[in-house]
């Protein structure tokens, strides 16, 4: 099965609303990264987390290594938040192989 599972696979939000994306790990993840892939394909680094929480503007991410999950909260969604969100974690510490989830495709509409 997938070592990194993302949910939901797709999401449609109205501008100004809030939502949360989730990443579950079946591996012993020690760190997690969240990316936004824009329509051109570029991957934008959103967060790099050790266990704990980080916040950046309207985005907040939490990584719980004991329960093997991470969440990405989007507050007051804007049109420019549309794209595909990926989480990634090394399959085991120090092995140079960050494994990606299948992504959450987000569309924010007016």
């Amino acid at each position, binding site marked *: 099965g997938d070592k990194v599972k993302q949910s939901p696979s797709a999401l449609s939000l109205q501008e100004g609303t809030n939502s949360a994306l989730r990443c579950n790990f079946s591996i012993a993840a*020690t*760190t997690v*990264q969240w*990316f936004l892939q824009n329509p*051109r*394909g*570029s*991957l934008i*680094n959103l967060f*790099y987390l050790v266990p704990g929480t980080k916040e950046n503007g309207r985005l907040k991410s939490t990584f719980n290594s004991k329960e093997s999950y991470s969440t990405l909260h989007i507050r007051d969604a804007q049109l420019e938040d549309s794209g595909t969100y*990926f989480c*990634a974690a*090394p399959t085991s*510490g*120090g*092995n*140079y*192989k*960050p*494994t*990606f*989830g*299948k*992504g959450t495709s987000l569309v924010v509409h007016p």
Partner: protein
Amino acid sequence: AQTIHQWPVAEIKAVGSPLSLGCTIKGKSSPNLYWYWQATGGTLQQLFYSITVGQVESVVQLNLSASRPKDDQFILSTEKLLLSHSGFYLCAWSPQGGDTEVFFGKGTRLTVV
């Protein structure tokens, strides 16, 4: 600040033709380097990684090869393209060490016809 440059931006190539994609990282010495491949609408699959010049490890066999001729350069190539090679190729780097933040280039979109 570190910069990562990939070339070309896009390619349309015939089946059976050779391919060479390049990636250069500036502003960081001895980075870990990675090649990823993404099918349209799919997730990212790591193809190769390198922790030092001249040393490349294959993660997935896709009839592709990679080389690291210089500390700041990573090359992905094949002598004969297949239709299944179409997709989006991304080069990435991370600082030394195995569990560090990864940064991506802007990618090369390859269409094999």
